[in-house]
């Protein structure tokens, strides 16, 4: 039986960490992820975990410490946000290419500047090419459940990649909501122990980690890394299936809501999915065939699954919670468009950049996007495909 409780997204992650009891937790505090190491430090002080808690002087060092620990054969974890994640950038790539399954709790926050502490996805979206698996949560429950699944996915021999468990800063991280927790015993049994094949502290098999890779080998290693990311798709599905058998809650690469007969759909990531679902319920009662695709795994990107889910849709809006500055739309839009190119009939696709720096997204905002999609369907005119929503402006590229 699951345990009924209530806690914030940050506490849910710290609680999952306590249950898993990783060998090493190295962290430097930054809002809004600070509470995660704060809660965990309390568990350490209270003697509830035997984890080595390493306080470092920067995020570059926290990721370096995680790399050293994981390479030595330990399970290493950290937590960060925004500029903290940016400060790790070099090490994110090093850890991923060294094929070390470190787990990072990312509490999404706008990436400076102007300086802003509130939620958007610009921090982790910037890290999308670093070679990390990225799972996103809609609420505290999903943050907890994703964290319980993270290490099984990352450590699988055909994957061996680091993993980022993302949740929306403040909206999820600081909101207390109901949650179902699992017992320590069941969590430990589900997650299992880390059994690396090769590790630095193995005297029988000495090895080097992170040496210079010459031209004749570099590309082979990069292709292997790319193959590992492809393999991660199946790993995510397999671990989700076992999670459902064990705990009863279902997860996939994407989550579809009312998509069976949808003619207008949204594609988005994170906490806005809940607000969109409430809006869909309202509009369905009015007879509107609207649906939602929530992306759980952004890395690997579920291109086939998204294309299939959109195959029957006539118009869709991709909602990007990061700007991206491509000049032609955000990252989720670009990848969704690329995914749909294989479809015999591509739906009309627009991008709506929204929620930057914590700009609130309300049910009526979601309705405005659907209304806009219906306008496109009625007139047959797609109009501008790269829109921004919610800011003070009268430009036509504003929704």
């Amino acid at each position, binding site marked *: 039986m699951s345990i009924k409780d*209530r806690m914030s997204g940050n506490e849910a992650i710290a609680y999952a960490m306590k249950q898993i009891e990783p060998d090493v937790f190295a962290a430097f505090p930054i809002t809004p992820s600070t509470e995660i190491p704060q809660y965990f430090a309390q568990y350490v002080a209270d003697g509830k975990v035997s984890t080595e808690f390493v306080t470092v002087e920067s995020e570059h060092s926290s990721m370096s410490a995680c790399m050293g620990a994981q390479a030595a054969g330990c399970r290493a974890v950290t937590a960060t946000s925004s500029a903290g994640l940016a400060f790790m950038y070099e090490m994110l790539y090093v850890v991923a290419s060294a094929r070390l399954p470190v787990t990072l709790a990312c509490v999404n926050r706008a990436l400076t500047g102007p300086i802003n*502490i*509130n939620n958007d996805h610009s921090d982790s979206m910037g890290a999308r090419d670093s070679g990390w698996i990225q799972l996103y949560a809609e*609420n505290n429950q999903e943050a907890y459940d994703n964290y319980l699944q993270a290490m099984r996915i990352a450590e699988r021999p055909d994957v061996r990649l680091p993993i980022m468990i993302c949740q*929306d800063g*403040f*909206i*999820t991280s*600081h*909101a*207390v*909501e*109901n949650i179902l927790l699992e017992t320590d015993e069941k969590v430990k049994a589900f997650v299992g122990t880390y059994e690396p094949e090769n590790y630095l502290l193995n005297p029988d098999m000495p090895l080097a980690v992170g040496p210079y890779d010459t031209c004749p080998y570099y590309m082979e290693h990069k292709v292997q890394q790319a193959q590992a990311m492809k393999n991660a798709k199946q790993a995510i599905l397999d671990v989700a299936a076992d999670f459902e058998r064990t705990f009863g809650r279902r997860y996939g690469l994407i989550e579809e809501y009312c998509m069976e007969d949808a003619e207008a759909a949204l594609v988005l990531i994170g*906490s*806005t*999915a*809940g*607000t969109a*679902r*409430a809006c869909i319920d309202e509009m369905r009662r009015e007879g509107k065939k609207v649906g939602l695709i929530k992306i759980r795994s952004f890395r690997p990107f579920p291109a086939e699954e998204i294309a299939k889910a959109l195959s029957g849709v006539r118009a869709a809006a991709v909602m990007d919670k990061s700007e991206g500055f491509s000049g032609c739309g955000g990252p989720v839009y670009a990848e969704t468009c690329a995914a749909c190119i294989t479809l015999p009939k591509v739906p009309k696709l627009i991008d709506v950049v929204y929620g930057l720096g914590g700009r*609130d*997204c*309300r*049910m009526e905002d979601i309705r405005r996007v659907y209304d806009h999609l219906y306008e496109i369907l009625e007139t047959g005119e797609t109009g501008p495909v790269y829109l921004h929503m919610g800011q003070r402006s009268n430009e036509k590229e504003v929704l």
Partner: protein
Amino acid sequence: MNRITEIRWHGRGGQGAKTACLLLADAAFTAGKYVQGFPEYGPERMGAPITAYNRISDERCTVHSNIYEPDYVVVVDESLLESVDVTAGLKKDGAIVINSAKEPEGFRPLLNGYQGRIFTIDARSISEKHLGNYFPNTPMLAAIVKVSKVLDEDQFAADMEESFHHKFASKPQVIEGNMNCLKESLKEVKGA
């Protein structure tokens, strides 16, 4: 349909409006409800206006936006009335609860034409009487439970007592003061 009670808290950084909001979420959870309790953060500094929100319902509420049309508003610091439009969007059949020693109707001219019910509670004197210091959390929490009827009063008092026993396990001497503070607050709410 899922009936959702929405509450907005106005306070100043450091006064405990966020804590009171989370305590209400706790109490509602204990009563078997689905809850949301979340603060809205700006630049963090003592004394700056802050807002916090509660949604309380019988089924999970999936909406994750701030609350613009609350059923109830709680004002933890009456000096906010000069600078913050605390009744913005407040439903006519809802109510506002203000921490003040003054009579409720005296506030009507300050509430931008708000027509609904006004309540006050003198959290300072109740808190100073029972706790020897000014902690407005418990009185404001009791007042909003009383006014909104979102929880059964007796059950709420019993749940809070248990929660105080847990929270103050290392200093049981403050439990009685907090409970007296809570019980008196349930009685001392003034207004329609």
